[in-house]
């Protein structure tokens, strides 16, 4: 079997096993969908400008009605961001669990190079993220979230950017932190903090200046910018910079993580 074949087999197997676990299934797709649904019930529809009057009107920057759906979409997107970060960061610890269980050593002894195992691990993180995104967007869309109000590109590009950036971060965390227990803790608490500091749930304009200055180093901030760029502002030209930053975060995370894993696992 070729290297590509082995990587594909290992990553598909890891993704399959992830979604076979009822506990993972519940936390990766079940709870975020339920939470999004509950939240969307009280946010309701509308264009986000509820206090128009005879002499005072509101318009979105694009001047259309569709981009007025942004507040509803952005809140559900915020829930998604927390759970994609949580899911991928938590799954990043599995490579250390494999070391503990001995399956990593057995795979290495069978002649599979270490870089293939790390590549398969990274690929499985991206696959887990993709499956989660497809299920989450499909189900919340069916429950009323207008994801495609301004076209598929407004949503698909930010989601892909988030998955790449988060997979990179997850690999970086796995490379820097050797304890799967500590990775669980980071995966449990870190995403909520990143989401709050990145403006996923409330506009950063109300945050103190220090928090606003910190936002550009936070992937959640760029994910929200990418979504707003597509939904509210100038489409792809507004999304290009946030997407480039997300890609950069992903690649940098992968490089740091791979170096860490190569140093510690051998």
């Amino acid at each position, binding site marked *: 079997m070729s290297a590509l074949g082995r990587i594909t087999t290992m990553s598909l197997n890891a993704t399959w096993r992830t979604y076979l676990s009822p506990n993972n299934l519940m936390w990766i797709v079940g709870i975020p969908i339920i939470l999004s649904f509950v939240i969307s019930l009280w946010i309701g529809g509308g264009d*986000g400008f509820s206090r128009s009057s005879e002499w005072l009107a509101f318009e979105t920057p694009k001047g259309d009605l569709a981009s*007025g759906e942004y507040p509803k979409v952005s809140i559900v997107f915020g829930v998604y961001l927390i759970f994609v970060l949580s899911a991928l960061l938590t799954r990043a610890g599995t490579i250390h669990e494999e070391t503990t269980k001995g399956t990593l050593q057995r795979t290495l002894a069978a002649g599979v190079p270490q870089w293939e195992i790390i590549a398969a691990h990274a690929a499985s993180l991206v696959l887990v993220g993709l499956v989660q995104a497809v299920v989450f967007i499909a189900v919340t869309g069916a429950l009323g979230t207008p994801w495609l109000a301004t076209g598929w590109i407004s949503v698909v590009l930010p989601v892909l950017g988030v998955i790449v950036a988060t997979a990179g971060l997850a690999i970086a965390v796995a490379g820097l932190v050797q304890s799967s227990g500590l990775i669980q803790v980071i995966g449990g608490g870190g995403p909520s903090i990143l989401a709050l500091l990145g403006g996923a749930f409330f506009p950063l304009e109300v*945050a103190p200046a220090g928090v606003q200055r910190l936002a550009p180093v936070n992937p959640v901030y760029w994910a929200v910018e990418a979504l707003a760029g597509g939904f509210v502002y100038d489409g792809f030209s507004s999304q290009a910079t946030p997407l480039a930053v997300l890609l950069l975060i992903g690649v940098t995370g992968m490089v740091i993580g791979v170096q860490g894993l190569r140093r510690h696992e051998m």
Partner: protein
Amino acid sequence: MIMSLRQTGAIAVHHLRRVALDGAPIWLIGMPLVIIYVLGVTMSGLFTAEFTPAKPFRVVVAAAEPGPETSGTVRLLVGELSQAPDFFVVEQASGKEAARQAVLGRTADAAVVVSAEGPAFTVIASPGSVVADVVAGTLRHMEREGVIASGASSSGSPPRSQSPAQGAAADEAGSPPGPVAADAIFDAPWEGVGAFQYFSAAIMIMFMTFAGHSAMTYTVKDRATGAYLRIRSIGVSRGTYLAAGVVSSALVGAAFSTLMALITRVLFHVHWGDPLAWSLLTVTGAVSVAALSFLVMAVLPDNPKTVESAGSTIYTILSFLGGSTVPLTIMPDWFTRLFAWLPNRRMLDGYLAVAQGVTTGSLVSELTGIIVTAAVLMAVATLVTRAWKREGA
């Protein structure tokens, strides 16, 4: 009887010791403190009526169509908005399209377009943004003050002691509160407290549920490892063992809350109010959490991982509904009323009210509600255990 109590105490203290030595303090104490700090800093704007942006909003003003009337209003608006340099940096644009392009290209946060036909003022901004609300609030204030007219013609500028933006903020805030009765505080106890006060109570309750449940999980773990049967073989009754689980869960919850209250008092200067009222709330709350954990354990198979993750799921959802993760200040009225009966929500209301000066006498209904909930949960859990979980099953 005395022997049973001694056994219950010994097992409960052992569970408490296991939780304390299991690395739990790192995430049970460290994690909530970090979350309280982050939320206290970032969400402070949601807990005060006096809002000033960290940097002024960039606003462009333009006339939809040329004319002396609209041009005059544009000049008036630019002048008025410029009086609040902490809120606005104002520029004039050549027309509606130029103003829209400025917002679309993100060189401006919002635009105000003045028109002689249709609505006199159109605010162009991202929907749901703070700048849209601030600009609209300022325009409304100016209209009420007679600075601008809803027909887009200027009506002159009466003397004022505050800028339009400050006036708009004052409109939103209303009159300053005087002494408030306990009943009024319980209507919305989150109003009038700061972000650190709110989140110290809210996050403490959330992690108290996790702490209490982690103690209960040890009871299930003992079944899985065989420790339970060994303890039973030396004469400890089943009821005593289960009671020890509930007591240890309540003890862990109460001990955790006490520790958190002390730490947040020192670190964030959080005021917790009357110690007696606080203690009663904490003890009854911890018992209600223990009762719910007991019910979770009773209805699920004796698998520690299943009980642990089911508890985490239930408490995470309860935390959301009870106002621990998303502040009740931004929740709609129906949401705050619908889930007011939840024990964790009653605890939050109680802690916030006590912090505002409510004493034990006014807490009777909250305490009764928590105790009744705990008693019902405990009774159901006991019935389920007796009916479904025969010894050795």
